[in-house]
């Protein structure tokens, strides 16, 4: 067990964890931040997506020891009042069904818009291909990203 100091949503957090503990479980179990979800543990579904710097990262596959002093943004820190353009677009398009995949989808989309503020439909499809939605909300996700990209 080691002590680590990581920066989550602009706030320094000290945690004691084994070096191989994925960031996902640090967030969920040690910091009690439940917005980041567990879906596969193998970087196959995207439910656990957070931003490390500006990059969309699967937190289930990032050990705490590799985080260093990079800035981590989770869904809880994406905006002050849930009013990030993507969150607004998500609400407007009533994207969620069960909702479980959606925080990962939004974080992945946030990284996409940072690197490409006005993506085409095809670019959205390929950028979002790592995020599974079992309920089948892909079309509304795409529409919401397009809406957000125009705002």
């Amino acid at each position, binding site marked *: 067990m080691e002590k680590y100091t990581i920066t989550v949503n602009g706030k320094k957090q000290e945690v004691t964890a084994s070096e191989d503990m994925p960031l996902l479980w640090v967030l969920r179990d040690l910091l009690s931040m*439940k917005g980041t979800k*567990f879906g596969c*543990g193998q970087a196959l579904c995207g439910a656990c997506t957070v931003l490390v710097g500006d990059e969309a990262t699967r937190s289930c596959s990032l050990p705490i020891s590799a985080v260093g002093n990079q800035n981590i943004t989770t869904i809880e820190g994406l905006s002050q009042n849930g009013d990030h353009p993507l969150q607004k677009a*998500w*609400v407007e398009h*009533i994207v969620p*069904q069960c909702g479980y995949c959606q925080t990962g989808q939004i974080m992945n989309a946030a990284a996409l818009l940072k690197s490409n503020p006005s993506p085409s439909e095809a670019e959205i*499809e390929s950028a979002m291909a790592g995020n*599974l939605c079992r309920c089948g909300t892909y*079309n509304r996700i795409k529409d919401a990203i397009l809406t957000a990209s125009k705002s």
Partner: protein
Amino acid sequence: MPKFPFLKNKETENKSKVFIPSRRDFLKISTLASGGFLLGVNFQCSGPKGELVTFAPNVFISIDSDNQVTIIAHRSEMGTGIRTSLPMIVADELGADWEKVKIVQAEGNEEKYGDQNTDGSYSVRMFYEPMRKAGATARYMLIAAAAEKWGIDASDCHTEKGQVLSSGGKKINFGDLVEGLKDKEMPDEASITLKEFSSYKLIGKDIAIYDNKDIATGKAIFGADVDLPNMQVAVVRRSPVVGAKVISYNDEKALAIPGVNSVHKIEGAGIPPGLDKPLEGVAVIADNTWAAMKGRDALEIEWDLGENQQYSSAKQLDEMLKSTTGNGQVRRERGNFNSARQGAGQVLERTYLAPFYAHATLEPPAAIADFREDGTCEIWAPTQHPQWARQAVADAMQMDLDNIKMNVTLLGGGFGRKSKPDFVVEAAILSKAAKSPVRVQWTREDDLHHDFFHAQSAQRIRATLDKNGNFSGWNHHTVFPAIGATASATELHPSSGELELGCIDFPFEVPNIRIETHESKAHTRIGWLRSVSNIHHAFAISCMLDEIAEAKKMDPVDFILSILAENKDLDLSDEIKSDFGNYGEPLEKFPWNTKRLRGVIEKVALEADWKKMVSEGKAVGFAVHKSFLTYVACIVEVTKGNNGQIIIPSVHYAVDCGIGVNTDRIKSQFEGGAQFATSLAMTSAITLENGKVQQNNFDGYQIIRMPQSPKKIHVHIMESMEKPTGVGEPPVPPYIPALCNAIYKLTGERIYQLPFKA
């Protein structure tokens, strides 16, 4: 005791105590649901909470003197929107201010809420009426109180946005009437008039789900998100083969992992594994999930793998297919198929195979239990069926139901998986063993290895055309391990309930019909997945009908219309060798009407411009299928992309589900259904070798990703004043054959096995 009306099996009634409800039982529940409980609950004004007074005319509504209207959602939210749709109905009748209504999730309690089994697409169907009555009762009382206060007639008043208004322009907030309602009588149910459809402000509209923003901001609470002080986390190594037993285990290495606290064995049921019992396993309990996972990996377990260790699903599928050449158990008969066959001008014979499917809800099962020293247990779980979960815990732990409190969280997907309470029972057992609150966390691997799978199936259909080319005979053989086998190992044939899901309810006008089943054993846990055996039945039937149309050189849509009665309420009871369950509803109340089926066929052809698409040479496929009392027709268009991959540019659905309650959620269920069914058709399959599931995660068990999703999904909702029926499952069945029929147009190859690679 779970209630699954569509699984009733006449032949084996009473044999399997676990899942087959008696019809009487079911009717009792539906009468209860259709209004009885409204009177059963005493009218009460709960006492002051500080200054606050609450008026609670029934278990679903409370109105505080500060104007807060709270509506109870008693069905589980797994993505269908039911947590919004039923409260919407109450609010509309009540005249509440929807923007300010608070929705609270009910705990599992049958006595209080009636049926809470969120399954079988029947929440809206069963509760549309009771919810309207619940809202209307409260409205009557509020209006009576206001009218009395104003000294005017109640008929001069109405409610709107949380106020009672008089025609003369007086207004009063609901909250200001609460105090005065203290000693008022409940109105007689017969005296209550429900609102006209045209006056609804919410019903029939696109209404956003209640949890919309909470989900988009990460605040929504799913199963694994519940946190309790001193909670530990359990991860379980379960029997790799169904029926396997632990001979011995060594937990030394597991306990050496920092954070691991204890190891416990869970006793499994063996064979049959049961629908409500945990599998045999060894649980590692730790401070956090990661430590528990590592501890689980470090366990050394010696298993007696038992009788299923030789099982190969591929081999069984071969045998199942072979069995369909012989005579089976006849489950429906009309005319004489054999003579039709002898006199036929042409006989088509085709076989259809479909695999085991896993539910793969994106949220793997998880449950939290807090078994306390005083012998009570409080549970939080993403369960579709909180009452069954509560009962299963009571049975497993020999506890009184009253000592178990079952809280329901949001479900990160259900699709039938989270009806089964096995994971909830695990949490309770382990909390007691660990003497602390425990969260049981399933991994994706656990979920795929130990699901209650949709059964693999083999079907053979023979269709005859007589010498004049008329469609004269239909002989359908179907074989798949029955759900009932999971509870009772002697079940070898599908139940009549499973056959009514799209097989023996074959609605077309063919003079000679024989439908037969064959034996097959279950070697893994079988459950129900979104639309259940409708999945494989619709696939086989609608693909075969497309071939018959082709043999007759007819347009598929015209052909289907030509074999469907104009306007008839079908009664197949003389032909079916068991009671016709009609998804638990009497035919008088929900007739099987061919005109409504024609309606969706004509509508979808019109909206998609079918004839034009066909004449332009587009690869389009069509299918129609009624399930869960909802009529659905579907047209799918396919093309090939640059890399030869299949692209689905458009899907059109026409749906007749009676009155559409929340039209946005109807559309979203169909959008999602098309995507879900694309996975079933093209990417997903579970196989077993040596009794073990071979797929571990989403690399092996694939579901479609955004680029594979149909690009545009159009949902045309028929205008209807018929009683509402559900939409969670009905989108799935017709989509798969419509897609397969389109693929044939594109490639010239017919699809006979799912999932197909094109």
